[in-house]
Every structure is written in structure tokens, then in C-alpha cells.
């Protein structure tokens, strides 16, 4: 057994919302000591909840992923368990400081001096206004690795634009490239896959910079323009334009590589079907061999026997027909039953799982994906995902449940910075050290 790859690395985490905190979660899973630095006088929008103190009635008006707090109660400190963000708090430490005041900034400087990495993902200008620049960070710690992840980068006409994953994807072409072929593009629901890519690549960039620093002794500045970063996801569209000048449009669930059939088809809904109980199966055929296997599972109906469907080119030309016939057939099956029958025959397929069904899936259970974690303030014990790193000699675990605001103030101030009892009490009285957001914050 070895020690975790980043067990000697300390990260000062100024990041907000999803992309940055996902990056630091991955670093924490790999052993880094990630210290989430938070300001008890500023609610970072969309990081510890939309608002600090929502009412129970308000939760009910919101989508489950926004309003679905533990036991449908805002609880004593709602910011510690917002369902949209709490996933990103594991394995981290949290301390508080009001960095808008000079003594707060000084504390940041002392933390940076003891760290290896400083990471943030705010719009350009936000940190500069506080006096936190790359040059200042280098003054505090010459070997520091600084990661900045602004939406559109640190330069250029859009450097000041605010964005979530949804805007980055819109700007980079995704929103026009996805969705139903026959509906207006405004039917597209906001998704945030740009955060996934920026988060993973933020973690990768940090590890690369650490590798580089081991060789050279030098830290550096890493700039992740999240929009540019997101382009990696839309390879085919970018390359089609680059090579041929083609502007692709949306193709629904069909294959961008023209494999057919390829889609999402209805299955039997149990009991009295409601919106929440609709059942779907994804089926994709990418070779003639898989097409033959699918035909066999279907009982080789006459329509599928047509000669022109024997080749992928023939099937690609008849996708409307294939979709219609497949949907007629799948409708009579339970999704899991059909899933196993298709896979046993060698056809790629899977049920489109709704959140409540994940926990019971035998494969998800066998892999130990979800494990119970106890929330702060005795709010309850709930199942959360575990790290996706399976490195058997250096296993990633969950050693800290979702961290509460200011949970590690004692550790950070007393142990790490060595502040005296007297100074600690003064910083607490001055509102730097806290476990609650200032009462004035809604």
C-alpha cells in the first residue's frame, strides 16, 4: 500500500458553483488537503444554495434538484445541504474569513504561504478588486500553482461575461446541436456539461503543474477559459466545419456517426403510469452483427428482413421506419427485462434510469457506488456517491462527509496558522470566524 498521490499537497480553494469545486473534489479524493475558504458575509450565489435561508414553502415551488433539501426541511443551516451543490463538499475542509477587510486578506496571504495550489473560477476582475492577483499570490508564495477558470478566459472582449455551464455550451454551439429534430430549440433544458469538463481538466492541470514543479521547482499560472475548454466535447461538429465548412444541426438521439438504429424507445410503465414513472430504453446498433442480434431478439419480424436493412447505409436511410418499428416493439417490455435480453444477445442497450432507481440497480450496488454519509448538525444519514478512482494500492475513500461552513476553523486558524486563543476570539468577534452566514443575508 502506498499513500494517496496528492497526500502532500495543500489546496486553497476559492472556487464557486460547480466547475472549480468539482476540480477540488477530485483533488481531495486523490488525497490533497483542500481548504475551502468561505466568507460568512457573502453568499456565493449557486454554491451553498440559491439563498441562505429558504422557507419550507419556497422549497416546494422549486425543482427537486434545487428544492429537495433533506427531509424536505431547510434545516438549521440550509447552506450545508443544498442538493445541487452538496455533492462537491466531501473530503474538503472549510474555514471562514471576511476577505473584503485588510485583516481578512492578510489571513488569505498566510494560508497561501502554506499551500501548493490556489484555485478560483470567478469572472476576471472579482479577485483583482480584492487585491488578489497572480503577482500578489507569488509574493506570498513563490512556488504557488495558481489555477484560474474564468468562463471566457482572462483576456478578450468577453472576459467580463458571467456564465454557467449552460451559457458556455450555448456559446460553443452545443445548444444548437442537441435536442429534438422536430421541436424549436427553446425546448432544450439547461444542462451544465461544460462544468464536468472544466472540473476534470482543472484537476488534471493541477497534477501536471505539480509534476512540472517537482522537476523544475517552479509554480505557474494556469488559465482555463471554460468556453474554449468545452469545445472538446463537440469534436465532430468542430472538425466537420474545420475540414468541410459544414454547419451541423441537431439530430436528436441519432448517432453522429450514422449508426442505425440508434435511439431511446418507450417501455412498459408499471402500475398507473405517471410522468414520474415513464420508462425508456436506449438501444444502439453500430454493426451489422449487432443488427442481426437485434433481429433475433425481436423474433426476426418480416419488416426487419428487408434486404436494404442489412447494411448500415441502408438502415441509416430508413431511420424513421426503424424508430417507429422499434418503438412499437419495445413498448411491450419491462425496461430491465429487455435490457438483459438485448445485452445477452450482444446488443448495446440500457434502461434510461430515473434518479430513484439508481440505488437499487444490482450493478450500481455491486460496485459500491453509493455509501451512507452523516450530515452535519445531525440532519440525517444519506447515501452519496463515492470517488470514481479505483486505484487499489492507493484507494480513494470518503473520509469527510459534506463539509459544513466553517467546520475546520479551529484546525485552520489554530493548527495551521498558529493564531493565539486571544486572536482567535477577536477574529470570531469580528465576524471572520463563523459557522453561520451573517443574519443580514437572506
Amino acid at each position, binding site marked *: 500500500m502506498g499513500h494517496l498521490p496528492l497526500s502532500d499537497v495543500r489546496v486553497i480553494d476559492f472556487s464557486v458553483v460547480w466547475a472549480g469545486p468539482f476540480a477540488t473534489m477530485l483533488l481531495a479524493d486523490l488525497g490533497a488537503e483542500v481548504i475551502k475558504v468561505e466568507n460568512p458575509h457573502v453568499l456565493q450565489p449557486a454554491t451553498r444554495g*440559491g439563498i441562505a435561508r429558504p422557507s419550507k414553502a419556497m422549497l416546494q415551488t422549486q425543482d427537486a434538484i434545487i428544492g429537495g433539501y433533506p427531509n424536505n426541511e431547510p434545516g438549521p443551516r440550509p447552506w450545508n445541504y443544498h442538493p445541487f451543490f452538496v455533492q462537491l463538499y466531501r473530503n474538503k475542509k472549510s474555514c471562514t474569513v471576511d476577505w473584503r477587510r485588510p485583516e481578512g486578506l492578510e489571513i488569505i496571504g498566510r494560508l497561501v504561504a502554506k499551500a501548493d495550489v490556489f484555485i478560483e473560477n470567478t469572472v476576471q476582475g472579482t479577485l483583482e478588486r480584492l487585491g488578489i492577483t497572480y503577482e500578489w499570490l507569488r509574493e506570498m508564495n513563490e512556488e504557488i500553482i495558481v489555477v484560474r477558470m474564468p468562463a471566457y478566459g482572462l483576456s478578450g472582449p468577453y472576459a467580463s461575461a458571467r456564465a454557467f455551464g449552460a451559457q458556455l455550451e450555448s456559446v460553443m454551439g452545443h445548444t444548437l446541436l442537441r435536442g429534438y429534430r422536430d421541436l424549436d430549440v427553446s425546448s432544450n433544458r439547461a444542462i451544465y456539461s461544460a462544468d464536468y469538463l472544466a472540473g476534470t*481538466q482543472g484537476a488534471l492541470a493541477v497534477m501536471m503543474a505539480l*509534476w512540472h514543479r517537482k522537476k523544475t521547482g517552479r509554480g505557474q499560472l494556469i488559465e482555463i*477559459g471554460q468556453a474554449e475548454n468545452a469545445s*472538446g466535447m463537440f469534436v465532430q461538429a468542430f472538425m466537420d466545419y474545420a475540414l468541410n465548412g459544414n454547419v451541423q444541426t441537431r439530430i436528436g438521439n441519432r448517432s453522429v*456517426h450514422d449508426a442505425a438504429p440508434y435511439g431511446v424507445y418507450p417501455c412498459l410503465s408499471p402500475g398507473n403510469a405517471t410522468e414520474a414513472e415513464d420508462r425508456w430504453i436506449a438501444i444502439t446498433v453500430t454493426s451489422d452483427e449487432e443488427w442481426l442480434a437485434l433481429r433475433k431478439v425481436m423474433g426476426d419480424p418480416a419488416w426487419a428482413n428487408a434486404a436494404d436493412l442489412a447494411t448500415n447505409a441502408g438502415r441509416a436511410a430508413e431511420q424513421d421506419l426503424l424508430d417507429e418499428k422499434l418503438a412499437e416493439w419495445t413498448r411491450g417490455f419491462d425496461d430491465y427485462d429487455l435490457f438483459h435480453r438485448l445485452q445477452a444477445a450482444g446488443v448495446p442497450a440500457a434502461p434510461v434510469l430515473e434518479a430513484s432507481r439508481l440505488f437499487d440497480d444490482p*450493478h450500481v450496488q455491486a460496485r459500491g457506488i453509493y455509501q451512507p454519509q452523516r450530515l452535519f448538525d445531525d440532519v440525517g444519514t444519506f447515501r452519496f456517491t463515492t470517488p*470514481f478512482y479505483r486505484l487499489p494500492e492507493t484507494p480513494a475513500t470518503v473520509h469527510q462527509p459534506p463539509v459544513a461552513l466553517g467546520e475546520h476553523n479551529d484546525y485552520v486558524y489554530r493548527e495551521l496558522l498558529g493564531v493565539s486563543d486571544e486572536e482567535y476570539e477577536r477574529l470570531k468577534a469580528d465576524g471572520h470566524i463563523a459557522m453561520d452566514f451573517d443574519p443580514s443575508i437572506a
Partner: protein
Amino acid sequence: MAGPLDDLTILDLTHYITGPYATKLFADYGADVIKIERPGGDPARRLGPFKDEQEHPERSGTFFYLNTNKRSLVLDLQQEQGRDIFARLVDGADIVVENFRPGVLDALGIGWEFIHSRRPGVPLVSISNFGQSGPYRDYKGSELVLYGFAGELYTMGVAEREPVKMYGTAALIESGAAASTAIMAACMVGREQSIGQHVDFAITDSHLGGVDRRHASAIAYEFSGRKPLRHAGSAMGLGGVYPCADGYVEFTGAARFLDRMADMMGSPEWSQDPKWADPRAVADPVLVEEFSGHFYAWLMDRTRREVWAEARRARVVCGPLFTVQELFDDPHFRERGFWQTVTHPEMGTFEMPGRPFIMNDSPWELRRPAPLLGEHTAELLREAGYADGEIEELAAQRVVEVR
């Protein structure tokens, strides 16, 4: 300046999309990525778009994007001599990465036990659909199937219709990016602690445990018993895709900042009513409809770029829906030098998306285009100590393909 990984050699047995995207990130930051292709080549060479729409193994744009800076060696691992060559390549590598179906590498006699006994400090990262264990281990996947099972496909789309996925193979690229962090972690443990280990990276794990709405949906259900549903519009209220004079723009979280929205629209008289300052306004359907009336009218008088400029000024979260063509022409990305010009013997000279991130002391660099099939077979074999005569012999026996 060299890339940060210029002292790292990756023996890359991956093919198709997820694995090659992961190792591309290493190659683009300086690592020597030796891409072992089966006779006939990586199946991604048969994926479009193709240059001039002519299907050809050296004209795939998808393959090109995923394999820049790598060197290609065509090797038949079914033959014993092929496995010998593989063994000598392992001797020069820091890490091996593969994405065959679970068990295939073992069946070839070059699996974890073989690699570990030969080079104990060298890790092996196995990327697969459902992982190296569990009841679905041997099940097949595709981006749609894996995203349907493990990603948040279920809530995408409108309630009365089937769920509808992300573009192209975005879900696989996400997993490739996640896999790159696992590979890097294994490299660090190998280099610093001399520990090799067999890393099991499952695409499904990476979606279940990634940052996307899948994770948030599962937690919301676990917390509250409420099931996230499929319907149009943003999850965050008064947001989503809105039409304007020349297309569409996307807003998020606008409801939280009605004051900023009013500022964006030039603070018209109607917006001065104190009712808009009440944070509960957005939960009131009547007020939302009234607000939307003003909002739509304002949008329809303006182009995407005009709307976005006002939004940026007023600090409103907004973005235009651009086409890829508009992006290539866009001044912001031009000014930042994002596009990269490349030249390829079959595809000519063209511009493609550049670096995913900028490192000021160890930069991303396109040193070479994606390799032609077997372009580096002879070169790599020579580096591994084979004499020219041996290489000719191996090629004659079809153990390797030399270009």
C-alpha cells in the same frame, strides 16, 4: 518551453473515443504517447466527419482530433511475436492504458499480471463501459446507452416525449477527461512511490459520480424523496433559451437578479415598481408572465450580440446560441489565439480548436498532426532496439505494419 509531461511515456492501447481523448491530453502537453493500433487501425479512423466527405482511414476528423501528437505503431497482438514487441515497449513505458472489453488483455496474455511481473512499478489503467467487476461487466455500451444508464439523460427533453441526449459523443469525452485524471494519479504514484497498480476506470462510475445533474438528482431524491422530472426550461427559474431578433440567447438564474435584468433592459419605467424587488416575485406565475411580456418584447428588438453586450454590462448571466461557424469567426476567440493551424498529408491545412487550458510555464503544443496508420512503426521499433532487418522480417510476417 516544453510541455509539463515531456519526461513521460505512455503505452496507449486505447481506441475509439474515450481512451484516446484521455491520452490526447497527455500527448498535447508533451508526453510521448505510443499508440498501438490493431492491423487495419483504430476503428475511430472509420468515423466521420471525413475530409471532403470521402470515407478514408486517413481522413477522419474525429480520429484526427483525438490523436494529435501521438505516434502510431501497428501491431498484431494475436501473434506471439507481437506480444514480444509489446513486452519490449512496456520496458520503456511509464504507464499502460487500455480500453479493450474486460478480460481481453488477459486472454491475449498481456494483462495486468504480465505487465506487473515484468515492470512492478508500472501502472495499468483499464477504461471500460461498466467496469472490471459487477454483473454488467461484459455488457456493451455506447455514448447513448451509457449516458442513459449512468448520466442524467432521463430529465433531458420535454415531459410528453422521449428523453433526448447531448450532442455527438460528449458523454464519452467527459469520461475521457475524467479518466485522464486517474491516469495522471497512477503516473504520480508510479513515479514517486514505485508502485504499479491496476486501475479500474468505468465510464458509468464517472457519470454516476461526476458533477452533472445525475449526481444532484440522486441526492435530491435521497434527501427528499422527490424525483427530478423531464420538462422544458431551466432548473433555476426564469431562465432557459429565449428567442431574439436573429436567433436565441440563454439565461440562467435571472430570477435572482431582477434588478440586474431591469438594468440590462435600460431600467424602463415599469421595472421601477417595488414588486420586482421582492424575491418571491419569481415564484408568482402571474408576475412571471407579466415580466416575461416585457422581457420577450425587449429581446425581439435586439440581436444576440446586442442582448449579450447589455447583459455583460449589467452582470446578467446570458449567452448567445452560436453556430460553430460563428465561433470560428468570432473576434474573442481569434484575439485569444484559440484556433490552431495544422497540416496533414491527406487532409491539407486547416484550423481546429486549440488548447483546453493555458499553462504559462509548460505550454500545450501541437508538435505533430494525428499519425498516419503505422507512421511510426519502424521508428518505434528501432527505439526499442530492433535492427532494420528484424523490422523487415516482422513486417513480412504481418506482425507489424510499416508505413
